[in-house]
């Protein structure tokens, strides 16, 4: 007699072959009611393929899927929906020009007796769903006007608006700041308490202890193991994912109090965005960065972190303030002038801002530095250009089968290396990094960290923005903290030089302004009930 109740979801012997490539073979996954299963693996390990099979995107898979112990075959996304399976992708699937409630009811709109849309009923139900998630948001608001964190919860509400049994979250926290992550976790726990099974994909291992019950690890399209999260240390999970011992994730040695020359000195950096823009205005921000130094910029979403980098790169709003670059006055005008003066920017969103995704590795690598490979008549010297691109590909150990490979076919980590190569070919003296390791796997992360360290050692000044505090603390010599466009703290890696950079200290500074605005901080105990 079977004592244990059947698992909510069991996938067994799952395999999938794409033309010419085997993406998955013999993978298994089980989710019990109320369980949060972390699905781990490097980029290209097969996580997305597995989840797409579950969501009905790939109908021709091998193996068996059971729901409540009953074998099912999932042919189509609609079919998956009928089984109560919902997936929230990293790139959200909302229609920005429609309202929150229109999105929640997209495809299953309520209608009145006369056949017209029943807006009132939909608004009411949406408000109910949102309140259930602890979100106060007008259902009539356009999704375009909502923040990323809010949009994500709108997706959750959309999933809840049917029968939700299994919810897949693909890197839900990669675009969130710490405080918003906490709110998402509250929602996840609430769903789990109701018996929903959750599959949680993330590259942030440090989150797992807080949110996941067990972890299933994939490696190169195969099942690498399943571990309870409690009692398994991070190194063990990394070993399962990578299959080899990993070099130090944060190779930066103790603070090298750089006595190099000041590369960039910023005084009173102020911006005034256009009224309709979503950019945060900066208010008189001061800082400096020396040759060989890695300066971190911390803050919540909307604190103005990216805005600082964009302002320095001439890619944002009109800038006021006094800036000196290598002891010469500098006024950021356009990215073109910034690049000429030796500043390079690795932008936040590599697909939207950095890569011409349909073009080749070579095209992308040399795009910003093309001026260096010109012959008369502004023709490109293909030989020198190719040599330069090949050199950077080798130096950064970018995995690509050729320089003429389309960059969109590379994994996230390798795409990011192409972006870095593009910036490095311009030989910058100041390198601006906006979320340099977002959404890339542990192996590539460690390599990019090592590269940052090596660049600093060669005298490059680096300014790095990251939402991952452990990364900032692990990599930066100094961290400045922004809140609503103002500087609210400066912390040091070496406590001998000033306040020590700890998560608590940085978070406190990041929320400094909110406390002032909201009055005395309310105790967190009201949130759970």
């Amino acid at each position, binding site marked *: 007699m079977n004592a244990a109740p059947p698992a909510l979801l069991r996938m067994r012997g799952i395999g999938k072959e794409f*033309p010419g490539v085997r993406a998955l073979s013999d993978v298994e996954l089980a989710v019990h009611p109320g369980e949060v299963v972390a699905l781990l693996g490097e980029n290209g390990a097969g996580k997305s393929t597995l989840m797409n099979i579950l969501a009905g995107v790939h109908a021709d898979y091998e193996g068996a899927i059971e729901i409540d112990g009953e074998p099912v075959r999932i042919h189509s996304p609609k079919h998956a929906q009928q089984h109560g399976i919902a997936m929230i992708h990293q790139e959200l699937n909302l229609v920005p020009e429609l309202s929150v409630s229109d999105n929640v009811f997209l495809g299953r709109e309520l209608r009145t007796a006369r056949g017209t849309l029943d807006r009132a009923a939909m608004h009411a139900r949406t408000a109910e769903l949102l309140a259930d998630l602890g979100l106060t948001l007008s259902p009539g608001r356009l999704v375009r006007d909502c923040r990323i964190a809010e949009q994500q919860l709108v997706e959750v509400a959309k999933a809840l608006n049917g029968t939700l049994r299994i919810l897949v979250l693909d890197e839900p926290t990669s675009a969130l700041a710490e405080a918003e992550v906490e709110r998402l976790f509250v929602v996840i726990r609430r769903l789990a308490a109701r018996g929903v099974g959750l599959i949680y994909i993330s590259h942030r291992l440090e989150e797992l202890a807080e949110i996941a019950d067990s972890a299933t690890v994939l490696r190169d399209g195969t099942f690498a193991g399943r571990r309870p999260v409690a009692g398994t240390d991070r190194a063990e999970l990394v070993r399962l994912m990578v299959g080899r011992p990993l070099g130090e994730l944060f190779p930066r040695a103790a603070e090298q109090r750089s006595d190099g020359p000041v590369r960039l000195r910023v005084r009173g950096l102020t911006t005034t965005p256009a009224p309709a823009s979503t950019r945060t205005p900066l208010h008189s921000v001061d800082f400096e960065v020396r040759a060989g130094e890695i300066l971190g910029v911390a803050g919540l979403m909307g604190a103005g972190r990216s805005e600082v980098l964009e302002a320095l790169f001439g890619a944002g709003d009109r800038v006021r303030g006094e800036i000196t670059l290598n002891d010469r006055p500098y006024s950021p005008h*356009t990215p*073109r002038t910034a690049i000429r003066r030796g500043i390079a920017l690795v932008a936040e969103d590599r697909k939207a801002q950095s890569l011409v995704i*349909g073009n080749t590795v070579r*095209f992308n690598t040399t*795009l910003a530095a093309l001026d260096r490979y010109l012959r008369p008549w502004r023709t490109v010297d293909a030989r020198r250009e190719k040599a330069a691109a090949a050199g950077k590909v080798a130096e950064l150990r970018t995995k690509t089968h050729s320089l003429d490979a389309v960059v969109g076919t590379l994994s996230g980590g390798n795409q990011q290396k192409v972006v870095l190569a593009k910036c490095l070919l311009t030989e910058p003296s100041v390198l601006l990094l906006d979320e340099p390791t977002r959404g890339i796997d542990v192996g590539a992360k460690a390599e990019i960290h090592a590269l940052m360290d090596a660049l600093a050692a060669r005298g490059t000044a680096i300014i790095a923005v990251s939402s991952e505090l452990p990364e900032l603390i692990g990599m930066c010599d100094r961290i400045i903290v922004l809140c609503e466009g103002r500087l609210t703290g400066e912390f040091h890696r070496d406590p001998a030089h000033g306040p020590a950079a700890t998560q608590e200290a940085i978070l406190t500074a990041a929320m400094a302004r909110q406390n002032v605005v909201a009055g005395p901080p309310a105790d967190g105990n009201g949130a759970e009930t």
Partner: protein
Amino acid sequence: MSKTLPPARDTAAGTDEHLRTLRERLSRALPSLGSLQSCIGLLLVVAVGIVTKGQIFWNQDNLTNAVTAFASRGILAVGVTLVILTAGIDLSVGSVLGIGSMTAAMLLVHHGLSPWAIVPLCALVGAFFGFLNGIGTTWLRIQSFVMTLAMLSVVRGIDRQLSNNVAVGVQLVDPHGHLTPKAAAFAALGTPGHTLIAGVGYPVIAFVAVCVLVQLLLSRTRFGRHVYAVGGNPTAARLSGVNVSLVIITVFTLCGLLAGFAGPIDAAYSASADPLAGTSYELDAIAAAVIGGTSLAGGKGTITGTAVGALILTLLDNILGLNAISDNMQMIIKGLIVVVAVVLQRPGFLQPLVEPLRRLRARA
């Protein structure tokens, strides 16, 4: 009985290496031919022509006549391809060609200029309107579809106003009934029967030269790279130091310049500048680009592809004409060809056809 293959497999290891280098060379050569599909399309069209009309179709006179008739639209297609590569569109090229042709006729008839002066001046007039298109799409941030649609109307209006709605003939005759020297020189720009080298006339030479020059511009220069970057991802281009607005303005200006340049050819070919000359040519031009594999989403396409697309449309026109198919049917067929071409060029369209073959090979 199906298993008689294995003996042939023995040499596979040796030929595999050979095959791979061949395939690599092919895959490098293909992009410069536009796309495999459009080349196959061209061969199919030629085959249809030979099968239905034989020697009447496949002889130098007929083919050069066909290309001559299409040359001005081919030149428009090259310009439009440039714009489409930056993810824009130019609907005004037909009108700009019209005003180019009218300018040419008036400069010849009223001012007695020689073709050496007329051609560059017409190109300048076209470039001016193209420049305005560029300014409208960048500085005024009007979508290029809307901006050039407006320009289509404005330029056609100017054309008709200038000509007072009357066609201007370019075959000026002296009292003895002979063409004046200037008019004779102008006729060499495209009037059927005038050839320059080896039985080929100016329109064809101009078309080929434009194709070669613009293809080199795209594939060999920094500007060409920037065109693809702007079309592929304008934000990434800007953050890589590309002056996006300048690239777009330049591309529209070049497109207008080419349309203006094609004007005199059209005037000489028709022996007069009609105020309606070039009407709906923009559709042929866009169709040629699309058939040649240029993506309207921008960032993907080549001039060689467009040239192949233009040839397909040219020969199709010719074959349908030779077979006495009515104009109405011709329009319908051309429309269908565009749809088929776009569907055929989807990435991975050939996959289902190739895949079973590859699997078979892998098994063997």
